Structure formats: C-alpha cells, structure tokens
C-alpha cells in the first residue's frame, strides 16, 4: 500500500488511447474486415497483468468512448468490452499460467463470444448483418497478434515499472 500504490499509471491509459487511435487509423479496404480488436487486446493485457488497476469499469468507460468514436449506439462497444474483461477476470488465475500460444487459443473464444454479441447488437440497431463468417476475422487476427502485443506491453511494463 505504501510506495507501490500507483506508479506510472499514465502508461496504461496512454496505451489504451493508442489502441483507440489504432482502431480508427485508415487502412486499405481489403484489410478493413480483418482489423484487429486493438482495444480488447490492450485491455486484456492490462487486466491480466494489473487486475487491481484496470477492471470492468475502466473497460466499460473506454467502450463508451469507442461508441462515440465509431458512431455506434451508446453502450454497444461498452457492453462488448466489459464482457471481454469479465471473461478475462473470471479465467484470470488460469490464463496467467498458460504459455502464450495457449493464451491465444483461449482468447479466440474470449473475443469470439463478445463479437457475436456485437454482431447481434449491430443487426438489432437496424443494419444489414454481413454474410458468411466475415465478422469473426478480427477475432482470429487478434488472437494471432496476442503474443506480440503481450511481449510488447510486457516489455513496456517491466521497463517503466508500471504498477
């Protein structure tokens, strides 16, 4: 409680803002349908590493901001991200012990379920849902990116002693 209370906390929030930025960065049209779920990836890392700093409320608030950014219904991305965080927190003890590739496999499911909810809300809001399994590409790509994101953010956390 003494000196380790909150050190370099800004790194967490800055990285999450960076994730938001990445999620609206312009991309070539053919890559657009496979855009990684940057915010979910970054949030998952911080929730796994520092569950006492980043939790469901933070995820929900960032989701709310993402909603404004994407112009979706207020609360849509908030719900989805909060759900992802909830799953990560429930499996927290187990996930931390897994090797990276196994974490990727689990994340495939953890990102997949909220993505289905996302699709459902998207259709409910009056949009025409995409054909085939296109909406699951981002999940696959995010799971493949996980080891890199994990290594990168871990390096950052260790170097800056974020706590």
């Amino acid at each position, binding site marked *: 409680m003494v000196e380790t209370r909150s050190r370099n906390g800004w790194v967490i929030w800055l990285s999450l803002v960076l994730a938001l930025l990445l999620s609206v960065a312009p991309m070539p*049209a053919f890559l657009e349908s496979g855009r990684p779920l940057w915010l979910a990836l970054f949030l998952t890392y911080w929730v796994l590493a520092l569950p006492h700093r980043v939790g469901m409320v933070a995820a929900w608030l960032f989701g709310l*901001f993402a909603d404004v*950014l994407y*112009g979706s*219904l207020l609360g849509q991305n908030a*719900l989805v991200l909060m759900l992802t965080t909830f799953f990560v927190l429930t499996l927290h003890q187990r996930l931390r012990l897994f090797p990276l590739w196994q974490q990727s496999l689990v994340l495939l499911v953890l990102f997949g379920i909220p993505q289905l909810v996302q699709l459902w809300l998207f259709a409910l809001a009056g949009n025409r849902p995409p054909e085939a399994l296109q909406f699951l590409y981002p999940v696959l790509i995010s799971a493949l990116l996980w080891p890199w994101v994990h290594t990168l953010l871990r390096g950052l956390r260790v170097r800056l002693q974020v706590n």
Partner: protein
Amino acid sequence: MGDAVIKPLFVKGPSLGVRLLVLTVLSVSLMVVDARFDTLKPLRSQIGLLATPLYWLADLPTRLWEDMTLSISSRSELLAENEKLKAEALLLQRRLQKLAALTEQNVRLRELLNSAELVDEQVLVSELIGVDPNPFTQRVIIDKGSKDGVSLGMPVLDARGLMGQVVEVMPYSARVLLLTDATHGIPVQVNRNGLRAIANGTGNPGLIELRHVADTADIKEGDLLVSSGLGQRFPAGYPVAIVKEVVRDSGQPFAIVRAEPTAALSRSRYLLLVFSDQRTPEQRATDSAEAQEAADRDAAARQEAAAPTPAVAPAPAAPAATGENRNGRN
C-alpha cells in the same frame, strides 16, 4: 511484488457478478435511450469534441505522406499537371459561359411555370478526416461541424455527384452516411426520361440498387440517374449514379437494376456540403405566389405601356433548355 498482488484481494469492491449485472443493465438502458430518444444527443456531441482530435491524429500520417510526395514531386510533373489544369479550366469556362445564359433562361422559365425551385444552392467545402472503422457500414467523418453551420440531414457531394448525407453532428466534425450504406435510400430519376425510383445502398462500396422498378420500365445500361428532389432532403438534379446492369427475370416481380455511384465515394478527400432551402413548402409556395403576382403586375404595366403583345415568347424552348442545364451541371 507479492505484496502488491495480494493486497487488492482484500480491498475488492462488489463481486464480478454484481459488476457484470450493473454494467450490463446500464449499457442496455443507454442503448435503448440512445436508439429511441434524443436525450443523449448533446452528451454524445460533447464527447465527440474529444473524438475529433483522435480522428485528426489517426489521419495525420496519410496527410503527411501526401504533403511529402507533393513537396518532392518533380518540376516537370508539376508543369504537366499545371498544363492539364489549365486545359480543364478552359473547358469548364466555356461550359460556364453557356451555363450562365441557360441559368438565366431557366430562371425565367421557372417563373413562368410558377415554381420557386432554387437554381443555385450555397455550399461549404470540407475535408475528409476519417473513415468508419466498421467494414459493414459506409460512413465517413468530415472536419466541419455544428460550429460551421452543419446540420442534420445536410446533403454532401463531391465534384462528380452526390455522396450522402450528414447523420451525426459534433461541434467540429460530422459523420456522413454514404449512398452505398445498406440503410441509405435516395429518390432518383432517370435523366433521359424522368422515370422515378428509389436507390438503396447495398453495403458494397461502388454499388447501389434500384428498388421496385417494373419489368417493363424504360431503363437501360448507361442511363444517368439524378436526384429527383422528392422527399425534400436532397436538392434536385445532381448526378447520383450510372446504371451498370439491368436484369429482367420474368420469374421475379421486379427488374433488378444495379448502378454505380458517379461520386468517388472511397477516394474523394474534399466534399461539398449543400445548404438546402430552409423554408417550409408553405413558405415556398407563398413566396413563389408573391413573385408571380409581382411578375404579373409588371407584365400588366408593360402591356399597358406598349402594344398588347404576349410576353410568353420562349415557352417552346423549355424542355430542351432544362435538359441542357442538367447536362451542364454534370
């Protein structure tokens, strides 16, 4: 380290399940309120104030790259481009000369027809600063917002045709729904013969579909579709799309008509916002009636002054003139 990890276990607030429940209920109620009522719109546009710099920042690399290529492009390239632009300007000027006369004529004819349709609308130039990251919607963000006078439902065009309409206004930016979004529809008219139809987006960039066109309707490949101005949202007479394919299947109740938007929906960087007529139809009717009365009085005065000759000379030229004017705008 162990100290820091263990401690939070004891200062934990409500359990995960409780938090899940509370936040879920909160999100769902927010969504319902946002979808059904307007109460959250001001909040949204205020948070949007924070979102604008983020879009600006995300777009920065593209802009820097463009600036850089511009500054290192060779002199000969610039000269060639200059030549090309000069030639283009000359062509446009020629058309403009003709247009001035035609517009004049058109206004006169419209007065005779007792219609007070606007011939020239006010426009505002804006720049694209972002594209919607969701691949299943067709929306873009522009750098003009409510502070510049942008309002909900404003039509947006580029140099080649209609692009869409404003669906969300933030203080310094706005969101534009493109013609090709699956939730967008626009009333159009075949330029060749005036056949009316509704063009719906397909969600596919570069393709729109005409709904409920009879199998026997006179529409064919290559026809230009212009906005018809019905529905009071889009100004009339702007090019919308060119018909690419007409499938007449006798097993289907309607013909399938696919068209390609004339505007460069995925390439244009500079867009025009059109300030349409803010008057209500009643006001417009009153205004036009007053204008007509004034014109009648004028004509009567002139008739009294001069010999009684009818002032309706250019009437036979009317259809040709309007057609020419539309072509001139394309």
